[in-house]
């Protein structure tokens, strides 16, 4: 069965249409890259899939392993196994990482009809998962993302991904603002978490991240539509030729 099936998705913000008919199919075990020039709708697509209330879906469907994704609340989408690594992770003063993650883990367990995790088990798991992205122990006692550096925030996103073990992860511009070391750690974390059952969507503007996270399929999003789909070589071609030829090709249609 397909993991994610997006059909003719239209969506916008405050009456302005941004996605104008997106089609996308993702199977377990695959890594898809979605590239495109600024303003093409990449972040809107990730927001709409995760259920960001700022966006309104006007047409189309998204089926997530057989479930109607668009009818679910953001938290239920998470419980069903969708994870969004935010381009700008939100700072939540006063809520510690530990409390935050325990609430998230236990909400999911409750959704799945499982007992809450004991404090000891939970802390043990946190320790294990932190290792995936070499996240400092001290960050766990701090407020969510508050005072974190850019690199720490992105590592924290991947750490949460490790804890929640999603079926599908959407990495929205995870490479932006990262230096090469941080990029390597973040990408390493993503690769460690990759299995035959889960899938990843990497949203990025640049080829750079794709050197570390190898995509199976590359899509180019432009003016709210996927205008081009190819193999990993497409990303390299973009790196070389820029986006202009894609724009010209698409604008001709």
């Amino acid at each position, binding site marked *: 069965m397909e993991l994610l099936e997006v059909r003719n998705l239209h969506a916008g913000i405050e009456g302005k249409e941004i996605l104008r008919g997106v089609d996308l199919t993702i199977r377990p075990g695959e890594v898809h890259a979605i590239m495109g020039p600024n303003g093409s709708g990449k972040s809107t697509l990730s927001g709409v899939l*995760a*259920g*960001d*209330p700022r966006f309104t879906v006007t047409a189309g469907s998204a089926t997530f392993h057989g479930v109607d994704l668009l009818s679910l*609340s*953001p*938290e239920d*989408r*998470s*419980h069903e196994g969708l*994870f*969004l690594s*935010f381009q700008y*992770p*939100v*700072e*939540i*003063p*006063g*809520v510690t990482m530990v*409390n*935050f*993650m325990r*609430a*998230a*883990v236990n*909400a*999911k367990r409750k*959704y799945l009809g499982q007992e809450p995790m004991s404090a000891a088990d939970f802390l043990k798991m946190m320790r294990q998962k932190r290792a995936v992205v070499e996240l400092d122990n001290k960050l766990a006692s701090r*407020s*969510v993302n508050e005072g974190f550096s850019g690199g720490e925030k992105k590592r924290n996103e991947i750490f*949460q991904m490790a804890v*929640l073990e999603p079926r599908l992860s959407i990495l929205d511009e995870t490479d932006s603002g990262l230096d090469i070391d941080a990029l390597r750690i973040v990408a390493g974390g993503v690769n460690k978490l990759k299995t035959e059952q889960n899938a990843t969507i990497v949203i990025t503007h640049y080829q750079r991240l794709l050197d570390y996270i190898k995509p199976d399929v590359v899509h180019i999003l432009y003016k709210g539509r996927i205008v081009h789909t190819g193999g990993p070589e497409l990303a390299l071609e973009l790196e070389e030729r820029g986006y202009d030829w894609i724009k010209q090709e698409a604008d001709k249609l």
Partner: protein
Amino acid sequence: MNAAKAFGQYTALIQASSGLFANDPGLLARFRAKALGSLPGEIEKYKADKSVPAECRLDTLYAPDYGINLQHLQMTADVAAAFHCGVPNLNCYLMVVVGDVVHFTSSAEKLPEGLEIYSLRNIPKRYMADAEAISERSDSLNSLLLTDGIYIRVNESCRIDKPVQIVNLFQSDTPMLTPRRVIIDAGAASALRVLLCDHSQSPATPHLSSEVINVRVAKDAKVEIYDIEESMPSTHRHWQLNASQDDNSELVVNTTYLHGGVTANEYNIDVDGDGCFTSLSGLAVLTGEQIVSNKAVLRHKGCHCSSRQLFKNAVFDKAHGSFGGRVVVEQSAMHTDAAQTNRNILASADARMDASPQLEIYCDEVKASHGATTGQLDEQALFYMQSRGIPRDEARRMLTQAFMADVIDNISYEVLRQRLHVLVEKRLNGDSASCSTCATACHSNTAGA
């Protein structure tokens, strides 16, 4: 009933009952005489007070026809005996005030060197002048009706670790007005912690708790006062703190409103000395039709003092919160550093919040600031939490608790700080006015959980 009539009835009652007070100690008689003189002038002020919600104005609060225990009868003393504090490991000198009658528990009978506690009914003659001087500025109605109260004295250079806890309990089938008074006299270089808890066990009985806390912080002394209100929707409360600070002293006042009906808290702090520090903070979680007003006047007279005010309200349902804070920096108060912050969350469509943060500054060597915001929880943070699988309601609760956290984190007294975090969490979880959240745990022992 209009204000003059409401106050007139108390004046008449006291005058008619003078025979009852024949054996009262001189201190109470002097309070009464002073109140009879000053009350008429104050009535007009009460009526004209537009700085608090109408429900919190004194003429409104005192208007209903309450019974008063003028004969100082002991009611249901077993309530005091049955009391166990819900703050775990709280090792304290415990006093219990049932209605308006003061009881000493065994822990308060043997006090350490330098700490003395008396009922105002048997305060030693040598301390009366001090007690009266500290009480100079007090709500006249409280003074008029007072038949008991507590005098706490810490002698020079005595630093008392264990807190003095005063638990106000109310249990009655008839509507009552209970005047309560605590006079705190902290000698030079002394240190004292006082924990005040208000509870009610009669959810259906209208009750007005009139409380006046008078505090003198002598030079180099440190006094911390923590107040927790966890009463009933039928409870109305007028709580007035009057404090003065001498050179290099420190005063910490914190109020936590968890439950109640209509609450009017007043803080009058005179920073007379140089080099003082004052921390004044409060939080309130309001639901249903609860109304809470916090009104503070902090007056800087001495030099090189700093003050911090922080008040937060989370207002749900049809509740109504109000904050009025005034910082006065007099011409003599050079190098004052005063900051005042008020933050509020309106969490329901019908919730209301008024704020009036005021600065009155007559001195140019000053750093003063205030900020007030009223708004909602951060939508982006809510979505972020939801996207991690946390249900929206829980995310809201967590964010509200986080919003309140810094008020509690200000509390240096660790046992209490931890307990308050738990109490606020439970309160936000909707374990409403039930015994399970009540720190008194008079009926069961679940509160320690």
